[in-house]
């Protein structure tokens, strides 16, 4: 109990609050810039944390981590250029809403959902860390494979009008995911002698290219700045009661999905945002509004990606094993202070542990405060002339692509993706399936093959593992339900059925 009181003392001390505010401010900016996400942000912080106490350095990092997850949605909504990978799903409905002149509403939904997700994820970490860690341990390679496959089934929902276009996009994304050194056999695939491709096509290069660069190119098509027909009033940050009523369910489901996927190493927010959106869409009485500016299409993914923060800290604190690159950096910072995360840390450093546990919740609230101060400034970016926006997007795209690995190679790859994205945009191909397949391709393939290597080639491994069976069944359901609905409606969707 002493630890609890002392940790709250640290959090609500002047330095604690200052650190939380700075973290939130930096996090929102870093998150909003395409290419710079929480892990780059944290690694840039590391040198500054040497001289701080471990509690304060953790508060700073958590605050930045949380706020960056929210910040990514701002640029996704305003400019259709997701600032972080986990905000990719938000770009679809968020940008559609902004186009309808509701940029302000969209950001306030995102801010609220992010805060709710962050708080619920933090509560789960505070109250359920041990059981959640035990749950994470149940997932073997077969289980991860089935989870990935389940995620892939939402391609159909993301395809928009034409299923075959979505499936072609998914094939493209899966193909991209196989580039690089093979996870099991160690041979390079499709690298054409470029060692820059050994770690695979950088996911962020594809994300920035397909969303940001293509959007800038589409903007360049306009001759002059049109009258600001879709430039809305900005200012208020509070969601109306009607919006609360509409979105609370998807915030809740998003938070649960985010927390659960956050605890699984190698899954995290990049995948949780799609699963949460798909779940909300499947439960929604009006699934056809998704992609056209549905409030739940923002609330669900944004709640989920912030909830992954609490989830991702579960294996770190309860097992001493980082589950994501971002938490690995936090572990590095703790080790720099001579501390080794793990169950014994609760006994050795209760103040620190409770500072982290409460820190996640408080940081989400601080993020709401800072976010609401930022909102009016951020929302005004859409008032800039189109030419400046286009040039700005391209500039940030180039700088963000360079920041991935300090390589010009990645910048060129991003530009190439921009060209592809532009062509897809013109031909009405949805880009979301490409991104989703790219995120899941590696997860699915490496775990499928790891499972088979563990079982010496026995395919029964997928049917004897209960988690695998559960998610395989869920995948089947999520494919069959829309098909049945389509049959009932009248004729099935044209094309696509062949695959």
């Amino acid at each position: 109990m002493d630890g609890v009181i002392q940790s709250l003392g640290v959090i609500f001390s002047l330095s604690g609050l200052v650190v939380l505010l700075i973290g939130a401010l930096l996090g929102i900016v870093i998150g909003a810039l395409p290419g710079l996400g929480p892990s780059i942000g944290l690694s840039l912080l590391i040198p500054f944390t040497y001289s701080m106490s471990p509690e304060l350095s953790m508060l700073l990092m958590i605050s930045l981590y949380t706020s960056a997850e929210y910040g990514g949605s701002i640029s996704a909504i305003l400019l259709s250029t997701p600032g972080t990978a986990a905000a990719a799903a938000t770009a679809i409905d968020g940008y559609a809403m902004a186009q309808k002149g509701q940029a302000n509403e969209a950001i306030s939904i995102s801010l609220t959902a992010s805060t709710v997700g962050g708080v619920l994820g933090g509560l789960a970490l505070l109250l359920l860390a041990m059981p959640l860690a035990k749950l994470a341990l149940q997932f073997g390679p077969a289980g991860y494979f089935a989870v990935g496959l389940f995620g892939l089934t939402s391609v159909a929902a993301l395809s928009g009008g034409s299923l075959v276009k979505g499936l072609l996009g998914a094939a493209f994304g899966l193909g991209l995911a196989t580039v690089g050194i093979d996870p099991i056999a160690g041979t390079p695939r499709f690298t054409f002698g470029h060692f820059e491709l050994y770690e695979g096509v950088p996911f962020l290069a594809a994300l920035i290219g397909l969303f940001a660069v293509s959007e800038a190119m589409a903007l360049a098509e306009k001759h002059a700045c049109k009258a600001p027909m879709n430039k809305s009033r900005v200012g208020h940050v509070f969601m109306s009661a009607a919006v609360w009523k509409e979105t609370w369910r998807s915030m809740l489901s998003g938070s649960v999905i985010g927390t659960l996927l956050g605890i699984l190493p190698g899954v995290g927010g990049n995948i949780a945002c799609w699963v949460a959106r798909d779940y909300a869409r499947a439960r929604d009485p009006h699934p056809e509004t998704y992609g056209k500016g549905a409030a739940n299409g923002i609330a669900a993914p944004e709640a989920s990606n912030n909830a992954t923060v609490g989830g991702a800290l579960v294996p770190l604190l309860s097992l001493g094993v980082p589950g994501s690159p971002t938490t690995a950096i936090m572990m590095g910072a703790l080790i720099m202070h001579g501390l080794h995360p793990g169950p014994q840390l609760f006994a050795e450093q209760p103040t620190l542990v409770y500072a982290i546990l409460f820190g996640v919740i408080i940081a989400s609230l601080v993020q709401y405060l800072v976010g609401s101060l930022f909102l009016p400034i951020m929302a005004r970016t859409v008032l800039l002339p189109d030419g400046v926006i286009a040039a700005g997007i391209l500039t940030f795209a180039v700088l963000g692509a360079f920041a991935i690995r300090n390589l010009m190679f990645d910048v060129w790859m991003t530009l190439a993706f921009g060209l592809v994205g532009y062509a897809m945009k013109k031909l009405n191909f949805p880009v979301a399936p490409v991104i989703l397949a790219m995120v899941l391709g590696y997860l699915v393939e490496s775990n499928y093959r790891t499972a088979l290597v563990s079982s010496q080639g026995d395919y029964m491994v997928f049917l004897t593992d209960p988690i695998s069976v559960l998610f395989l069944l869920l995948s089947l359901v999520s494919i069959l339900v829309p098909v049945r609905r389509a049959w009932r409606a009248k004729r099935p969707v044209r094309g696509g059925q062949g695959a």
Partner: protein
Amino acid sequence: MMGAPEVPPNRGIPFSDLITGLICLAGCIAFLVLAFALPAGHSTGDVGPGALPKQIGIFGIICSAVYLLTALRGGFAEERPEFTESHRALAAFAIFAICLAVVPWLGLAPALALAAAVVTLLFAGRGRLVRAAATAAGVWLIAVLLFERLLGLPLP
């Protein structure tokens, strides 16, 4: 780059869809061929590095074929793409590509500032030159102050 080449408007046949379908098909076939060239795995039970790529290739070929057939039957008629303004988009792209190509001599920040200025010039409106200069200065400042100084990126 302001000289506007005339892009022929679409005629009755879904020309762009056909080309897209053929490109997809060719891409998938090439991918499949490359996948078959991959070596076999060497761990017991492993399906090998080529297994998933082969499946993707075949899946892609089927999808491309369905896409082509749908396009031929006029399945995408109601969403006919418009390319009349594409030269402007491609110009913006080309400006950035050219400016990035001269980064080894110019440095990244000045090259970006130049590219941003030229791209803003593509747009009509009052005070174009002033706007371009302001954009260039802003871009340069962001690149140098935010990315190079604050974030410590080794910009070329």
